[in-house]
C-alpha cells in the first residue's frame, strides 16, 4: 500500500487553514487513508485504496480536504492555456512503448519542498500505479533549454547520450547493463530490438524512457520556473491519468499549464467524463432517502459536477467504472457513522457439512483415548514428508516458488506433523500420545485433491502394535463398525508389525510400530506405535450404509 510524507505546514497552507487532529483523521478516513506517523511537523499517510492515485500527492490530499470541507467550490476544474507544444511520434515506437504525452508548467518557482514533493509523486505514480515503470513512467525537465517540437522515436541500442549524473556518453545498451537505473529497469525493455528516445528540435536527448533522463536537459533544480513533464506508456488512458494528476498538482502550486499536441490529441485531456446516474441506486445501495439537492451537495464534496441525471467525473478519477462507485462516494460524504443499522430478518437454517460433523466426532473419540490434539501449518516439505519417514515421494502438490524450503509443498500426510512435535518435545514427560486431524492434498490425475486425514501416535517404553490396534478397536466400537486388518508393507513401519486397515474391504489407513530407522531420523529414543487414516474415504464408505 502506498504511503507519502509531507510537512503539515505545507498541507495546511495548501488547504487554506489548519485542521484540528481529530477532524483531520476523520476526513482522511473518508479518503481511505490513515495517518501512519506525525512527528517533527511531518505527516506520513498510508493509503488503503490502491486505486486512487490522485491522492498520492500532498496537493491531491489538500484538494480532497478543501472539497470535503467545502473550502473550494466544486467541480474541481483546471483550465489549460491555449498555447500548446508539439511532440511528434515516429511509428518505430509502436512496438516498444507507443504512447507519450506531456505539458509545460510555467509561472511559479521550484522550491526545495516542491521539488521533494514532485519527485515523491513521480515515484509513487511510476512505481505503484505504473507497476515499476512498466505501465507508465514520468520525466521532469527544466524547460528553458528545450527547443520544441520534440520527437519521440525508437532507435538502435548503439545510440549514445550522456545519462543523468554521468559526464560521458553511453550507448543505450550499456546504460541497461551498467547504469544503476538501467540495471533496475532493464527488464521492461527485455527482447526489444530498439529502445525509445525523446529528443528536442535540435536533436538533443531529453530522456531514454522509461529508464533515465539526460544529464544535459533532464535535471530539474531548485529555482527553475519552467518545467516540462512527459509521461510514456502503453495505454492512452494510463498516460493521460498520470499527466492529469501531475498537471493538477503543479497548477495548485501556481503554475500555468500548457498542453502538448501529440498526433492531433491535446494532452492532458482534462475533460470531465459524463455518465448517466441512476439516483434510485442511492436508496437501493445505501438505504438512504436523499433528495436531488442533497445528492448534489454530497457529490460536490468529492469534486463531481451534477446536471440532472448526468454526473460529471473529475479527470483524475479513473476508478469510477459503475454507478455504485459514485454511490459509495455519496455514502462516505454522508458519513458511515450516520447510517442507522438495520437487522437481517430473513429466516435461514444454519448447517455445516456432514463430514465436518463426522470428523468432529472422530476427534472426540481419539482425544478420549488419551491423545493430545495438534494443529499444524498445511505447508510442509519433502524431507519431512518422505525422506525422514523412509518413503518414496509421490503425488505431491508442489509450489512453483517459495520463500523457505520448509514450506514448499502441501502436506500429503499428517504423521510427519506429529513427528515434528515429538522431536521438539523430548524434554516433556512420556508417554506422549498425539493426534492431528486435518486436510491434506495429493495429486490425482493431475488435479490436487483435498482429503480429511487423521494421524495418531503413541510414544513410550512399551508402545506396541497391540496398543494402536486397541485404539483402532475403541474407535471402531464407538463408530459402531467392524474393521479388517491385513498384513501390509510400508517402509515407515517395522516389517511384520504393520497392517492396513479397511472397512467393508475399502482400505483407508495404515498402522503399526514405527521402524527404528524412522525414529532415528526424527532423533527419537523410544518405541512408537502410529496410524494414518483417510477419513474422507472412511466417511464415503460409511455414507453408503
Amino acid at each position: 500500500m502506498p504511503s507519502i510524507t509531507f510537512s503539515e505546514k505545507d498541507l495546511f497552507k495548501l488547504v487554506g487553514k489548519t485542521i484540528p487532529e481529530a477532524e483531520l483523521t476523520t476526513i482522511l478516513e473518508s479518503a481511505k487513508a490513515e495517518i501512519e506517523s506525525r512527528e517533527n511537523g511531518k505527516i506520513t499517510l498510508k493509503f488503503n485504496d490502491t486505486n486512487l492515485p490522485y491522492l498520492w500527492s500532498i496537493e491531491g490530499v489538500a484538494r480532497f480536504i478543501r472539497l470535503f470541507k467545502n473550502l473550494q467550490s466544486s467541480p474541481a476544474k483546471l483550465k489549460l492555456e491555449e498555447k500548446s507544444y508539439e511532440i511528434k511520434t515516429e511509428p518505430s515506437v509502436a512496438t516498444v512503448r507507443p504512447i507519450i504525452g506531456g505539458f509545460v508548467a510555467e509561472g511559479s518557482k521550484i522550491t526545495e519542498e516542491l521539488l521533494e514533493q514532485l519527485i515523491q509523486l513521480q515515484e509513487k505514480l511510476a512505481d505503484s500505479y505504473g507497476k515499476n515503470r512498466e505501465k507508465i513512467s514520468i520525466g521532469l525537465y527544466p524547460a528553458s533549454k528545450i527547443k520544441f517540437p520534440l520527437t519521440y522515436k525508437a532507435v538502435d541500442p548503439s545510440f549514445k547520450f550522456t545519462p543523468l549524473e554521468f559526464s560521458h556518453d553511453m550507448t543505450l545498451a550499456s546504460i541497461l547493463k551498467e547504469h544503476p537505473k538501467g540495471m533496475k529497469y532493464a527488464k521492461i525493455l527485455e527482447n526489444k530490438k530498439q529502445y525509445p528516445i525523446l529528443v528536442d528540435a535540435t536533436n538533443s536527448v531529453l530522456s531514454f524512457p522509461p529508464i533515465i533522463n539526460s544529464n544535459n536537459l533532464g535535471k530539474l533544480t531548485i529555482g527553475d520556473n519552467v518545467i516540462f513533464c512527459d509521461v510514456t506508456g502503453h495505454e492512452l488512458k494510463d498516460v493521460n491519468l498520470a499527466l492529469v494528476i501531475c498537471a493538477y498538482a503543479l497548477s495548485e502550486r501556481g503554475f500555468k499549464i500548457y498542453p502538448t499536441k501529440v498526433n492531433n490529441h491535446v494532452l492532458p485531456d482534462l475533460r470531465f467524463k459524463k455518465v448517466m446516474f441512476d439516483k434510485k441506486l442511492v436508496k437501493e445501495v445505501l438505504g438512504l432517502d436523499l433528495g436531488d439537492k442533497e445528492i448534489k451537495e454530497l457529490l460536490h464534496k468529492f469534486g463531481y459536477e451534477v446536471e440532472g441525471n448526468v454526473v460529471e467525473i473529475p479527470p483524475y478519477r479513473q476508478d469510477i467504472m459503475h454507478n455504485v462507485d459514485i454511490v459509495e462516494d455519496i455514502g462516505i460524504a454522508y458519513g458511515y457513522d450516520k447510517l442507522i443499522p438495520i437487522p437481517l430478518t430473513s429466516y435461514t437454517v444454519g448447517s455445516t457439512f456432514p463430514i465436518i460433523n463426522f470428523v468432529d466426532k472422530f476427534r472426540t473419540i481419539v482425544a478420549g483415548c488419551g491423545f493430545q490434539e495438534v494443529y499444524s501449518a498445511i505447508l510442509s516439505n519433502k524431507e519431512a514428508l518422505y525422506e525422514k519417514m523412509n518413503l518414496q515421494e509421490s503425488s505431491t502438490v508442489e509450489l512453483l516458488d517459495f520463500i523457505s524450503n520448509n514450506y514448499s509443498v502441501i502436506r500429503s500426510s499428517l504423521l510427519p506433523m506429529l513427528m515434528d512435535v515429538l522431536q521438539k518435545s523430548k524434554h516433556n514427560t512420556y508417554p506422549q500420545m498425539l493426534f492431528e486431524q486435518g486436510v491434506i492434498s495429493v495429486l490425482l490425475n493431475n488435479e490436487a485433491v483435498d482429503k480429511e486425514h487423521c494421524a495418531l501416535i503413541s510414544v513410550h517404553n512399551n508402545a506396541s502394535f497391540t496398543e494402536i490396534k486397541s485404539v483402532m478397536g475403541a474407535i471402531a466400537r464407538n463408530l459402531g463398525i467392524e474393521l479388517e486388518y491385513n498384513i501390509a508393507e510400508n517402509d515407515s513401519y517395522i516389517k511384520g508389525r504393520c497392517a492396513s486397515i479397511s472397512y467393508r474391504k475399502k482400505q483407508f489407513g495404515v498402522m503399526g510400530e514405527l521402524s527404528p530407522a524412522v525414529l532415528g531420523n526424527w532423533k527419537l529414543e523410544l518405541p512408537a506405535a502410529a496410524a494414518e487414516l483417510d477419513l474422507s474415504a472412511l466417511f464415503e464408505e460409511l455414507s453408503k450404509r
Partner: protein
Amino acid sequence: MDINTIASGLHPLEREVLPYLKGKTDIGAICRESGMLEVSAVRALGWMEEKGIVKLIITPEEIIDLDINGKECISKGMPEKRFLSILKTPLSLQEIEKASGLSAPDVASCLGILKQKQAIKIEKKDKLIVEITDAGKALLNGKWPEEDFLKKLPAPLGSLDKKLVGDLRSRAKIIKIETKKHKSAELTDLGKQLKNIKIEDTIDKVTPELIKSGDFKGKTFRSYDINAPSPPLYPGKLHHYRSFLDNVRKTFQSLGFEEMSGPLVESDFWDMDALYMPQFHSAREIHEAYYVKKPAAANVEKKFLDSVSQMHEKGGNGSEGWKYKFDFNRTLRTVLRTQGTACSARKLASKDLKIPGKYFGIARCFRYDVIDATHLPDFNQMEGIVVEENLNFRHLIGLLKMFAKVFAKTSEIKVVPGYFPFTEPSAELFAKHPKLGWVELGGAGLFRPEVVHPLTGRNISVIAWGLGVDRLGMFDMGIKDIRDLFTHDLEVLRNAKVV
C-alpha cells in the same frame, strides 16, 4: 495441626514405628525390635518428621566390617587355627601349605603369630620343621575370640574390643573400617504427646471384604494430607485453537449461516478473476501469492470463463469493465488460495445457492510473506456472504454490529470506509475491545455488480464480509504471537486452556 487429627491420619507404618521410639533411638534397633524392614521404617520416620512428630538425627559413624579374608576366617576358621589343627606330627612348611590349603604368605604370617604365643616350636634341619607345643594344643582346643568378634560384624567401632580391632587390622584384609551415616530418631514434644494418647484403630483401605462385611461401621478411616502433592496428569484433549474454531463454527450455525468451502489449490479464476480483480492487479504478482508447480493448471466451466472474461474485457450491466485483453491461460493457473472470498465466489456460482441465504466459511489461506509474530504463510480467514433481494449497506452495518457483539463482546463499533477490489461500497469494522481498545475485526461490503452478475446471471444484493478469525482467536486466548496458534511445543499444547 490438632493432635487428634495427626493421630487419625497416621499411616499404618507410622503406627508400627511409634511404640518403639524411646528417647533417641537407633533405626537399626527399631528394626530389630519391631521386625520392620529398614526401608519401611525409614519411610515412616520421614513422614513423621514432616509432620513434626520426630526429629531424625544423622551422624557419621565408623563401622567395622568384614574384608575379603574375613569371611573365610568365619567359614573355615582363623588361619592359625587351621595351621595348628593339621600339626598332628611335625611337618615341613611345604607340607603345612599342602595340608592346610593356606597360601605361602598366610603360612608365613601364622608362623609369626603362633611363635609369639609359644604354640609351636621350629627346628632347623635340612629344612624348617614345625611342631606343636603343649601351649599350642591348649590354644587349639580353647576359645577363639577372634572368630566370635568377626561374627558380630558389621558393628560400630565404639562397641568393639579395641585390642582385637588393632590386632586384626594389622593383618591382611580381614576387617575394614567404613564411614556410614548413622540414623536415629527422637520424638519431639508433639511426638511425646502423641505417644501418650490412645490412638484408635483406623481403616486404611476400602476393600471388597470391608464393604461386604460392614466392618467399617463405627470405625474411622485414616485421614489423608490433602495438601500433599500429586503427580501431574496430561489427559487426551482437543487442541485449544481448533476448539475455538469449533465454537465459531457452531456460533455461525446458530445464527442461521450455512457452511461453504473450496479447495486449497485454486485457479486464478476463482481466487481472483471471478472477484473482478483485473489480471494486472498488484496482488497477483508472482511474489504476492504461492503459485503451484504441480498441478500447473485447473479446469473452469466454460460458462463462467465466458461471463467473467466478458465483464473484465467489455463490462456490461452498467459497468465499463476493466477494458483489457483477458488472458485465458493465466486464469487457469493454479495458486494456493489467497483469500477466503474464493469460497464466496464458488458459492455464488453454485447451482444450490439459496436465496435468501447466509453463508460462512473458515478457509485456510496462504500468502507469500516473511514469517514473523504477525505473519504466517498459512492462516485462516473467516468469510461469508448474505444473498437476498433488496439488502443495502445499512443491513451490512447491522450485520457487522451483530458480529462485534457475538465475537468481540462489544456493542461499540466503528465502521469506516474501506477498499476491496470486489466490493462497493466497502467498509472496515473496528470494535472496542474491553482491554485492547479499538481493534480491527474485519472488512465487508456489497459485492460489485461486476462480481454478482457474471456468476449468478442476475442482479441481486450480496453482502460480503470477512473477519480476522486468527486475530479473534488470539484475543480470546491472550496469544500475542500468531505462530503459537500452530505450535509444535508439547508443553504449550498440554498446558493450554481449553476454555
